[in-house]
C-alpha cells in the first residue's frame, strides 16, 4: 500500500513533464459570475514548466525516503498542481489561483519542518500573501481597464494607470523573487524549511516570481520603453529595476558570505542570483531576456543540486553549521562532486552553463551601455566566489569538527540520484551552450516577439558581441589537464601522502584535534573591515519589519481597549454615537 502510494506520488511529481509532453490546445473552467479560467501554454510558460518538470521529480525523490511524511507529500502535490495552474494560466484569475495555492501549500510544507520558528513562518506567509494581494489588486485594476481577466497586452494605458499597474504587479513579483528590501522572508525560510523542500523553494518556487517579472513587460509592450524614455541604450524604467536587482545581488552576496549556516548561505545566494535575473529583466533587450531565462535555468539546476547535496549532508551528519562540518570529501565523495559542480555553476565559471548565462547578461549590459550596472554586477559575481568557496571548503575540506562529520557516510541514493542527474545536465549544458538557446530559449523569445539569439551549432554560443565554443573550451581544458597530470607523474621523485591530517606546517607547532584548524565559520568575517562591506553588513531590514509588527501589536492593544468587558461602556458608546450623529446632522443640515 505504502509502496503504491509512493509510486503514485512519484508519478504525480512527473506531472509537469507529462503536461509538457501531452499538452495541446486549451482548457477552460467556469468559476463564478462569468469568470472563466482559461488554460493555455505559452512558450514563456512552457519554459518555466520545463524548469518545473526538471526540478519536481528530483526533489520528490529525497522526499520519498522512509519514513516519509505523508502530509508533506500531499502538500507537495498541491504545490505542484498550483504551480502548473499558474503556468498554464491564460487569464489572471487562474494565475492568481495558482499563485495562492502555491503560496499556502509551500507555507504548510514549511511548517512540516521541525525547525521552523514563529518569526520565520510568519514572515514567509505574510510577505507572500502581501505579494499575492498586491497581485490581486493589480489584477483588479487591470480588469477595470480591460473588462476581462485575460492576460494580454494593454493598449495605451494612461501614465497613472500604467504606473499603478507597474507598481502593484512589480511589487508583487519583486516580493516573490525577494529583491531588496523585500527579501527578509527568504533566508530564514529557506533555511528552516524541510531540507529537500528548500531545494524546491529556491529552485522552482522563486522562479514563479521571475516568470511574473518577465511576463510583466508583455502586458505593456511599450510601457517599459516609452514610460520614462530611454536611458542610454535601454529603457529608463528598466534602469531602475536593474539597479534594484543589482543592489540586491551585491548586498545578498555579502550577506551570504557572512552566514554561518549552509542553508542560509544558499538562501542568500538565491536572492543574489535572482537579483541578476531582475537586472537582466530590467535591461529588457532580447539578449538580456535570453540571459535572464538562461540564468533561471542554471539557477534551478544549481540550486536544486546544491540544496539536495546539503540536505544529504545534514541528513548524514546532523549538522548544518559550517563550524561543525569538515573533511567530508573522503566520506561523501559524490556529494562533494555535486557541490563542486554546483558552485562552479553558481559562480558562473566557464565551462559550465552559468558562464553562458552571465555572458549573455554582461553582453546585454554592454549593449545597453549600462556600464555602472555591469561593474556592480561584477562586484557581486566576484564576491560570490568567496561564498562558493566557503560552501565547498567548510563542509568538505579542512578538518572534521564534530562527531557527526567524523563518522558520516555517503548520502542515501534518493539524494544521490538527483545530484548525479543534475550534474550531468549541467555538464551537458556547459558543453553545449547553444543547446539551451536553441531548444529552450529561442522559442520563448520568438513567442515574446523578440529577436531570437540563434545558435550556429549546439556547441556554440553566438551573439553579436562574439561568442565562445563550449566543446572546444572543454576539450582544451581537458587535454591540458590530462597532459599536465601525465607529465607531472612522469617526473622523477616520489609523491607521498601525508601520514596524518595534522601534518601541517604550523610554525613548528604540532596541531592536534583540539587546535582550531577549521576556517569554516570565520571565513569572510575579515571582509567587515572593508568599509563598504562592513557598512552593508551592518544594515538590515529585520529591525524595520519587527518594528512594524510591534506597531501593529501596539495598535491592536490600543484598539483592544475599546473592547473592555463593561456593558455600560458599550451602551454609553452606542448612545453617544447616536446623539453625536444627530447633533452633527443638526449642526450641518439643520433639523
Amino acid at each position, binding site marked *: 500500500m505504502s509502496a503504491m502510494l509512493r509510486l503514485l506520488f512519484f508519478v504525480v511529481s512527473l506531472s509537469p513533464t507529462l503536461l509538457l509532453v501531452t499538452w495541446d490546445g486549451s482548457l477552460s473552467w467556469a468559476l463564478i459570475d462569468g469568470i472563466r479560467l482559461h488554460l493555455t501554454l505559452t512558450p514563456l510558460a512552457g519554459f518555466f514548466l520545463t524548469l518545473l518538470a526538471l526540478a519536481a521529480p528530483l526533489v520528490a525523490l529525497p522526499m520519498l525516503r522512509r519514513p516519509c511524511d505523508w502530509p508533506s507529500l500531499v502538500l507537495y502535490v498541491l504545490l505542484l498542481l498550483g504551480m502548473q495552474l499558474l503556468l498554464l494560466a491564460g487569464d489572471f484569475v487562474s494565475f492568481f489561483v495558482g499563485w495562492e495555492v502555491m503560496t499556502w501549500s509551500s507555507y504548510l510544507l514549511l511548517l512540516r519542518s521541525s525547525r521552523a520558528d514563529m518569526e520565520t513562518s510568519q514572515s514567509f506567509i505574510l510577505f507572500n500573501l502581501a505579494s499575492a494581494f498586491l497581485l490581486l489588486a493589480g489584477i483588479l485594476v487591470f480588469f477595470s481597464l480591460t473588462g476581462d481577466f485575460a492576460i494580454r497586452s494593454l493598449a495605451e494605458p494612461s501614465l497613472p494607470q500604467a504606473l499603478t499597474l507597474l507598481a502593484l504587479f512589480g511589487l508583487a513579483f519583486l516580493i516573490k523573487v525577494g529583491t531588496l528590501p523585500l527579501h527578509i522572508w527568504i533566508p530564514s525560510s529557506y533555511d528552516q524549511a524541510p531540507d529537500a523542500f528548500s531545494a524546491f523553494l529556491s529552485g522552482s518556487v522563486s522562479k514563479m516570481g521571475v516568470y511574473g517579472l518577465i511576463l510583466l513587460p508583455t502586458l505593456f509592450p511599450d510601457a517599459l520603453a516609452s514610460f520614462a524614455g530611454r536611458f542610454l541604450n535601454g529603457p529608463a524604467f528598466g534602469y531602475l529595476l536593474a539597479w534594484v536587482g543589482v543592489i540586491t545581488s551585491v548586498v545578498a552576496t555579502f550577506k551570504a558570505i557572512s552566514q554561518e549556516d549552509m542553508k542560509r548561505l544558499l538562501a542568500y545566494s538565491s536572492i543574489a542570483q535572482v537579483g541578476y535575473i531582475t537586472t537582466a529583466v530590467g535591461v529588457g533587450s532580447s539578449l538580456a531576456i535570453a540571459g535572464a531565462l538562461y540564468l533561471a535555468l542554471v539557477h534551478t539546476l544549481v540550486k536544486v543540486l546544491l540544496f539536495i547535496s546539503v540536505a544529504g549532508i545534514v541528513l548524514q551528519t546532523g549538522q548544518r553549521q559550517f563550524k561543525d562540518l569538515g573533511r567530508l570529501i573522503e566520506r561523501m565523495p559524490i556529494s562533494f562532486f555535486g557541490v563542486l559542480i554546483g558552485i562552479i555553476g553558481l559562480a558562473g565559471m566557464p565551462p559550465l552553463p552559468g558562464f553562458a548565462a552571465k555572458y549573455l547578461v554582461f553582453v546585454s549590459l554592454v549593449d545597453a551601455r549600462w*556600464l555602472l550596472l555591469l561593474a556592480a554586477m561584477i562586484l557581486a559575481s566576484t564576491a560570490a566566489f568567496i561564498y562558493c568557496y566557503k560552501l565547498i571548503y567548510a563542509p568538505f575540506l579542512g578538518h572534521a569538527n564534530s562527531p557527526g562529520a567524523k563518522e558520516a557516510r555517503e548520502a542515501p541514493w534518493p539524494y544521490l540520484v538527483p545530484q548525479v542527474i543534475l550534474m550531468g545536465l549541467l555538464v551537458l549544458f556547459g558543453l553545449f551552450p547553444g543547446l539551451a538557446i536553441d531548444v529552450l530559449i529561442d522559442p520563448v523569445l520568438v513567442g515574446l516577439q523578440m529577436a531570437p539569439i540563434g545558435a550556429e551549432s549546439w556547441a556554440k554560443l553566438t551573439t553579436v558581441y562574439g561568442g565562445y565554443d563550449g566543446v572546444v573550451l572543454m576539450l582544451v581544458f581537458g587535454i591540458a589537464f590530462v597532459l599536465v597530470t601525465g607529465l607531472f607523474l612522469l617526473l622523477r621523485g616520489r609523491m607521498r601522502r601525508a601520514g596524518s591530517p595534522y601534518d601541517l606546517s604550523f610554525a613548528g607547532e604540532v596541531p592536534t584535534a583540539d587546535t582550531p584548524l577549521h576556517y569554516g565559520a570565520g571565513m569572510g568575517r575579515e571582509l567587515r573591515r572593508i568599509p563598504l562591506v562592513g557598512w552593508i553588513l551592518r544594515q538590515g531590514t529585520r529591525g524595520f519589519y519587527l518594528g512594524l509588527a510591534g506597531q501593529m501589536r501596539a495598535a491592536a492593544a490600543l484598539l483592544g481597549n475599546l473592547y473592555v468587558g463593561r456593558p455600560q461602556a458599550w451602551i454609553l458608546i452606542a448612545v453617544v454615537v447616536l446623539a453625536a450623529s444627530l447633533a452633527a446632522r443638526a449642526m450641518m443640515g439643520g433639523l
Partner: protein
Amino acid sequence: MMHAVVDSLAMIGVSYVMGFLFYGFYRQLNARIQRRWGPSIWQNFFDNMKFFFKSETLSHGPMFFFGPMIIMAGAFTTVLFVPFLKDSTWLQGFSQYGNLILIIYLLVVGPLGNALAVGSSGNPFGVMGVTRGLTRLMGLEVPFFLGLALVMLQHETSSVHAIMAAQDGLANWGIVTNPVAFVVILLPFIAAQNASPFDVVGAPVEVYAGPRVEFGGRLLGVLMTQNMMMSIAKLVLVVDLFLGGASNVLVLIAKAFSLFLLTTAISMVFPRLKTEQAVDFFWKVPLGIGVLAVILTVWLPSWSA
C-alpha cells in the same frame, strides 16, 4: 590539426620562456633599485627547475594533488585562448573560439581550482590566504572589468581579435583612443599580476606564505610555472587590447616588456597594502576613475547627442 598542436606548444613555450625571463628581469631590476647585484636573470628558471626535481613531494590527498593540475591546465587554457599575434596564423591557439569575457573568467578558473587543493590540505593559513586572494579579486575585478567593458563598448564586440584588428597604427591604439580605460585597468592589472603593492596574498612573510603554505616540491614547481605563464597571458591580453597587438614575436616581447616595465616601476616604489586597504583603494580610486570615465565617454555623448 597538426598546426593547432604545434601552435599550442609554441604558445605555451613562448609564454613560459617569457615568463621566467620577465620575472628574472624583475628580480634583477628590484635588486638594482635596492643597490645590490641581485640574482641572475635565469634565477626563476633555476628555482622552477629545482622544485620540479625535488625528490620528495608531500600530498594531502587527491584533491590536493589535482588542485595544481587544474590551475596548470587553467593556465594553459588561458594562454591558448589569448591571441598572441595579430594578422598571423601562428600563436593564435584557440582564441577564435573565445572572447574577452571568457578570458577574464578563465583567469580565475585555475586559482579557484587550486583553492580547493589548499582547503583540502587542512592548513588554516592556506585557506586564510585563499580568502584574502578572493577578497582582493573581488576588489580588483570591478574596476578591471569596467575598464575592459569600456573597451568592449568602444569596439562593440567582446572578441579580442576584432579589438586588435581595429587598432592598426599607433593612432588607433587603445591607449591612445581610450586612455581612460587604460588608466582604469592599470592598477587592478598590477594586482591581478600579484605584484606589489597588492601582493599581500602570497607574500612570503604574510600569514605564512598564504595559499601556498602546504605546497612543496614538484607541486610548488607547478604553481610557480603557471604563475609565470598566467602573468604573460595577462600582459599579452593588455597588449592586445591597448597596445595594438603585435605582428611578430619580437614586437610582442617588446610591447609586453614595456608594459611590464611600467607596471614594475609602479609596483616597486609602493609598499604593500593590507587586503582590505587594497580593496578599499580599488573601490575608491580606480573605480572612481572608471565611473568618471563612464560618465565622460558614455553618458555625456549620449546626452549631447
